């Protein structure tokens, strides 16, 4: 069967005046998904790079796969730990896959429905940005998050976080983080504490003795609340690095995230400067707190901060968002450092927010235009200085 002929046959009914013209943007999205259009250049450069937004977004999705696959395995692994079951790697993965799939489907269906509708209203082509956002959202959720809550959060993020500003490319805040922030502030018990990170724990599953479901983020706050001390030298730090710990689905394995980072940096899609400066900012801030040494949390070795919680995931996949991040080269160093510093500060000083990464990135998103403004202003000053020099 000639697929192209089939598409050409049904195309007219989706065009202006056709039977299904209300679905024009949707049809176009599917058609361009199947075929790169035959549009040729008309003005300006006659030849063009083959890079387009579809490719950009699919590379990011590929970079997310290691963390996603590990996340699926870890859902099963944590569940087996909690129940004391002796599952195989494949069994754990399959368990995680089955429980992760509904989250991904809900996120994509909700978000894409809104994207398609707003593209149709604006007579635009559907922008591919949500393909990444739609996968990021479930990856930064706890596995026990109710599906209806996920749907509302996604809708909130896409409508109020993106479409009201004009769609992909125009938004101020990272939409995936907005979805998380929405749940964090509206239903805090569903996204914090010790119980939500392991499937079933929140729903009444009684874990075997010794399994708490707590994430490494709560070690220091719990110790401080109970007035106990922590021996930082005997913690399973390598497990934190590999990711065999409770946490949001995609964020636990620093190793898998670093593989994704390598893909993004190698393909040139995400900025290594942002990633490096986020890690550096977090490490420097952690080291400073080590020097102050006023409580148990401040005693935690600085590099632990980079391994626990959503730090690595945020640094690699959220902070590097080219739309909401800093866009000037100098600005990126400052922007990244602010995220790293703020994330650690919020963790250590604000017991109410055990994970500082989300708020740190949203805060940096808000000030990124100001950072860029000053960098661009410096460029303008250099230019104006030249005027003064040449008129002397």
């Amino acid at each position, binding site marked *: 069967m000639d697929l192209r002929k089939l598409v050409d046959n049904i195309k007219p009914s989706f065009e202006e005046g056709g039977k299904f013209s209300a679905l024009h943007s949707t049809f176009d999205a599917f058609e361009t998904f199947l*075929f790169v259009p035959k549009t040729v250049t008309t003005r300006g450069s006659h030849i063009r790079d*083959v890079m387009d937004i579809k490719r950009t977004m699919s590379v990011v999705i590929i970079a997310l796969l290691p963390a996603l696959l590990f996340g699926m395995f870890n859902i099963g692994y944590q569940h087996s730990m909690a129940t004391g079951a002796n599952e195989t790697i494949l069994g754990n993965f399959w368990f995680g896959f089955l429980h992760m799939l509904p989250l991904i489907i809900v996120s994509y269906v909700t978000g894409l429905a809104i994207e398609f509708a707003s593209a149709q209203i604006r007579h635009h082509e559907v922008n*591919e940005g949500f393909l990444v956002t739609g996968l990021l959202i479930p990856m930064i959720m706890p596995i026990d998050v109710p599906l209806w809550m996920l749907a509302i959060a996604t809708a909130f993020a896409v409508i109020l976080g993106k479409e009201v500003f004009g769609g992909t490319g125009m938004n101020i805040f990272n939409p995936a983080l907005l979805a998380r922030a929405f749940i964090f502030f509206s239903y805090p018990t569903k996204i914090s504490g010790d119980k939500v990170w392991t499937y079933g724990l929140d729903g009444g599953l009684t874990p075997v003795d010794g399994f708490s479901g707590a994430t490494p983020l709560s070690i220091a706050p719990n110790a401080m609340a109970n007035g106990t001390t922590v021996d930082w030298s005997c913690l399973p730090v390598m497990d934190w690095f590999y990711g065999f710990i409770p946490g949001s689905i995609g964020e636990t394995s620093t190793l898998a995230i670093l593989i994704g980072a390598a893909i993004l940096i190698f393909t040139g899609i995400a900025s290594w400067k942002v990633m490096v400066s986020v890690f550096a900012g977090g490490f420097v801030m952690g080291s400073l707190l080590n020097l102050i040494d006023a409580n148990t949390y401040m005693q935690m070795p600085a590099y632990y901060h980079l391994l626990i919680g959503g730090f690595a995931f945020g640094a690699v996949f959220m902070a590097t968002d*080219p739309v909401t991040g800093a866009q000037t080269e100098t600005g990126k160093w400052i922007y990244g450092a602010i995220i790293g510093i703020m994330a650690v500060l919020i963790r250590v000083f604000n017991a109410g927010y055990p994970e500082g990464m989300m708020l740190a990135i949203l805060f940096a998103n808000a000030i990124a235009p100001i950072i860029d403004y000053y960098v661009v202003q410096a460029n303008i000053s250099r230019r104006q200085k030249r005027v003064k020099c040449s008129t002397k």
Partner: protein
Amino acid sequence: MSNKITIKKGLDIRLVGKAENTLHEAGLAEVYAVCPDDYKGITPKMLVAEGEHVLAGDAIFFDKANPEVLFSSPVSGTVKAIVRGEKRKIMAVEITPDAQQEHRRIEGINPGSMNAQDVKDLLLKVGFWPMIIQRPFGIIASTAATPRDIFISALDTAPLAADIDFTLQGQTENLNAGISLLKKLTSGKVYLSTAVGSKLSEGIKDAECYEFAGKHPAGNVGTQIAKINPIAKGDVVWTVAPHHVAMIGNLVRTGEVNFEKIVAVAGSAIESPRYQRIISGAKVGSFVKSNIKTDVKARIISGNPLTGSRTCEEGYIGFYDNMVCALPEGDKYELFGWIAPRFKKFSMSRSYFSWLQCGKKYDLDTNLNGGVRTFVLNDIYNKVMPMDIYPVYLIKAILAGDIDKMENLGIYEVIEEDIALCEFICPSKIEWQSILRDGINQMIKEL
């Protein structure tokens, strides 16, 4: 002594079909034309009528706003037709050449005794003035101005570009004489930029010579200005293409108005890419027709693939262009193209697998390779912008119509060719060059 500057930010696009160093004499075309659209922002007023006989160098029309700026016939012959488009706009003045070419001659040119006004008068008189381009804005130089400096780029790094060392072979003395004459027009310096190791700068008396190396746009005169002595608000500098400098030099030395030039005929849709000696304004078909591959649907471009203008066999080579190229049209669907490895396609990013083939040359077509989107990857353009300019901010200022910002962000320093690479790599497929021209037109109106 030569100064060497290496351009690190940029992109070399290696295409199949670069002209080989062989020169063919094209002979006379059946028709030549002077096209007002080759020149930015002029309104032509005719000086000749159909059927009149002209010599090479005789004025054909002048610019309504600057009546002293004359545009002359490149050949001797008979005015065949004044082709008009919508609203009677003059599209082309076609001239049928005489079998025996006769050039207008200016006797008694003595460069030693000429001052700036004499030079201006000479260049205006024979229709050479439009060769001088003014920055800011990339328009024909104002006859009232004295430029800060004059820049000549004798290297071209654009894809498929002509090798200037080859096209100016044997023209060293003309180049030298042209530069010496131009020197009289500026209070500052004349700068000549060449490729590293080029012989073109040997023996040049009145220019400061620079060697440029590195990636495209190292050969763009805009890049060279930015590196040597950038344009500030209020500055006016002039640029002249090297083959035009040689024509001016030839006029000084022989007194003859001659529009002959060597152009590259290149591109993957060309049977045998090579150089041709033609006369400015020649009908494109006259020197490429027999050389175009018959099995491809080709797009013929006057100029290089990044900045050239679309033409056809019936069209005419642009006044400023020193090459014509033919590329396959890309009006074909590609199943799952955006997810395929695409070994044969070129991308600056490594998101396709074509990076595996280092040094390979690519056969690119004219497909847009995607749909138009808003700006998403805002930070990639800096990688191909060697000037101290934030290209996305400039383009956004233009889209917003903010004159102050355009000025502050450097619109005086750039013309289309300087941001052509941004357009090439743009994953959102935004039309940078036409947006910039709109911005420049707004600035011209405003000033």
